[in-house]
């Protein structure tokens, strides 16, 4: 199913060679400022091999990161290296890179085959080579039967796939996919995910961004979390999850007699502290949220105190991010 790209050779690098042993992508203290807004704040990372998911909300800086890597933007501070070369100054490393932007825009008037062939020729392939490769990659993403149809008539999933196809045409070592699953229906989503997973299995370095955890989870366990332009977490998904579990949890109870209720909770073995931020509020601090939750109704009833609200202030994005930010510094 996977075409053997080595048959048609690499693009002509014309004098450029990657710095040996250099990570495919390396950012050191990179900051990107758009006027008054900080897009990326002092981010350092290095990626070589494997599939890496980049997770972050809208505006977290995922696209900015990618645009810096592919030289669409210039870093305000810090250094960006693509195979050891600054992509802003030298476009040669793009010969090893495939980039799928988040932009929905395509050349609607071209056929899928024309689109991929034309762009392949920019890698320095001759017409025939380019066409051969285009057919290969279109087949790889499952668009072989619609290759001669105009892109304007493609569905959204097909458009995503043709973008992925064009990024694969040069047999890249590094593939960057910016929100490849955005707006895809479940079927297209699965196809695209399979493509990404297969790419990872082929030994390529793949960077894929999303704001949805499930999607990333299906593709890879290797994640980078960005928020407000800062690098929050980096590493294995399970490891991060466990780290989060170790973090103390809080339960907030609203009641008329917080002190009495607090006293009732203290004997529980997993509760290691109570606080009273407001006259009618009680905050229980625990290491094991679920066991406290299990015991909670019984303790409340036993204490005979009227509880008007139970909240879990940690289970929202802000608190998660707040924790991650604390953990970083």
């Amino acid at each position, binding site marked *: *199913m*996977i075409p053997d790209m080595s048959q048609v050779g690499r693009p002509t690098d014309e004098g450029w060679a990657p710095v040996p042993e250099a990570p495919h992508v390396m950012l050191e203290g990179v900051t990107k400022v758009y006027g008054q807004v900080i897009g990326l704040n002092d981010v350092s990372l290095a990626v070589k091999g494997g599939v890496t998911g980049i*997770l972050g*909300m*809208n505006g977290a800086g995922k696209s900015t990161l990618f645009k810096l890597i592919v030289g669409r933007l210039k870093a305000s501070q810090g250094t960006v290296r693509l195979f050891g070369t600054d992509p802003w100054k030298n476009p040669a490393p793009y010969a090893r890179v495939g980039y799928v932007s988040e932009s929905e825009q395509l050349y609607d008037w071209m056929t899928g085959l024309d689109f991929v062939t034309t762009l392949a020729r920019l890698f320095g392939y001759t017409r025939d080579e380019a066409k051969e490769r285009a057919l290969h990659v279109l087949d790889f993403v499952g668009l072989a039967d619609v290759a001669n149809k105009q892109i304007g008539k493609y569905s959204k999933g097909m458009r995503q796939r043709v973008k992925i196809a064009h990024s694969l045409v040069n047999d890249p070592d590094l593939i960057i996919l910016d929100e490849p699953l955005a707006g895809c229906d479940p079927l297209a989503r699965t196809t695209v995910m399979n493509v990404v*997973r*297969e790419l990872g*299995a*082929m030994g390529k370095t793949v960077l894929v961004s999303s*704001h*949805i*955890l*499930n999607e*990333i*989870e*299906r593709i890879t*366990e290797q994640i980078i979390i960005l928020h407000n332009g800062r690098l929050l977490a980096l590493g294995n998904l399970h490891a*991060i*999850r*466990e*780290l*989060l*579990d170790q973090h103390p*949890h809080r339960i907030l109870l609203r009641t008329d007699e917080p002190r009495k209720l607090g006293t009732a909770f203290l004997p529980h073995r997993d509760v290691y502290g109570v606080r009273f931020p407001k006259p009618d509020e009680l905050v229980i601090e625990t290491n094991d*949220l*679920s066991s406290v*939750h*299990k015991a*909670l*109704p*019984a303790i409340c*009833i036993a204490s005979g105190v009227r*509880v*008007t*609200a*139970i*909240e*879990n202030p*940690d*289970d*929202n*994005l802000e608190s*998660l*991010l707040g924790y991650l930010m604390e953990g970083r510094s």
Partner: protein
Amino acid sequence: MDDDMSSIDDLFDEFDSEVQRKKETSGGETPADAAAPPRPPAPETEPASETAQDAPATETEYMGQAGLQVTGQARLEAAFGSGEGDESASAQVAQGAPSATGGTIFHQIYRPWRGELNPRWMRNWAILRHHIYGLFSKGHRPYPLMTKLVIFGVFISSLADLGFMALGSITGAEEIERMFGISRGNLYGHVLAFWFRNACSYPIVTALIIGGIISEDRQHGTSALYFSRPINRRDYAMMKFLSVGIILGVIIIFSLCMYYLGGILVNGEGWSYLIDTSGMFLAALAAAFLLVFTYTSIGLALSSVSQGKFFPAVAFLGIILGTKLVAFLISTLFDRSAIYLISPYDNLAHVGQWMIGVNHTYDHPAVWSLVMLLVMNAISLYVLSARVSSLEVTRE
């Protein structure tokens, strides 16, 4: 390749099945009591909460799913949950609001709007205002700074003859005063002179204003904002026309009036002068109206056929200056004055010469030019109306 993937897949399967198991152990949920009469939510309840339920006394639950524990996994899900738009949602856990004893369905009642519609002129005035106020303040149709500057500059330069006349009067230099004083030639020149007014100023201003006036509605789909309201297409086109006409009118017609009025005031002329010159002034005024009307209709027709602001602007300049140049070339080479009939500007100039009464510079009868002018306007208005009536309410 599938073989290679097995290890990762297994990993996922393992994970999925674990989640599944947790769900199953929690047992089925009781559906909300359907018989319970719908009641308004208590003030302290979050209306956004879809699944506010009693917390079963012995179970934990998370996001309405019993049995799910608040773990790191859950936190990540809360943060980067399922689809789009849920980034701002917060996880509601074990909410114990007193009134939420069962499910609540809010009945949605849609009532037709029975308000009084503003009169038609008021709605049209809103469109007109939108386009004209945009020149001065924010919150209305945005004109690029460059356009505003050019409009201002051309307005000032079109008052140049008034300025020179005043200068001549103040310094007492009769030469200047005579040169710029009110005369048939100068009134004609104020409106229809090719150099410099109709070669540069007026066409450029028109091109800049008409550039995006309809085409951008088409390009950005903002025409839907108009047509989804009680505004018909004729009113829409008319108000667009009027707003362009008013801006051009201020530059061309208003400055002409200023010039004439200024001439009378500067020289302290009496009634007899007024009566003597009012004929040619009115003729110049009529010529100016014709100029504004023709430029506006050609410009709007071009704006309505395209999707960007660039094409109409360049095409307008092409029509005004290009046809003039072609006619100049052919008439100079082959001595055919009638070729000037293809040029809107020359038709206007010829009709203007005829109305104001200055020497004709064309050999063919003025009536031909007038007829040609009417034909051009008719074609432009036809194109405009046809294109506006085909404007899609959705984005094209």
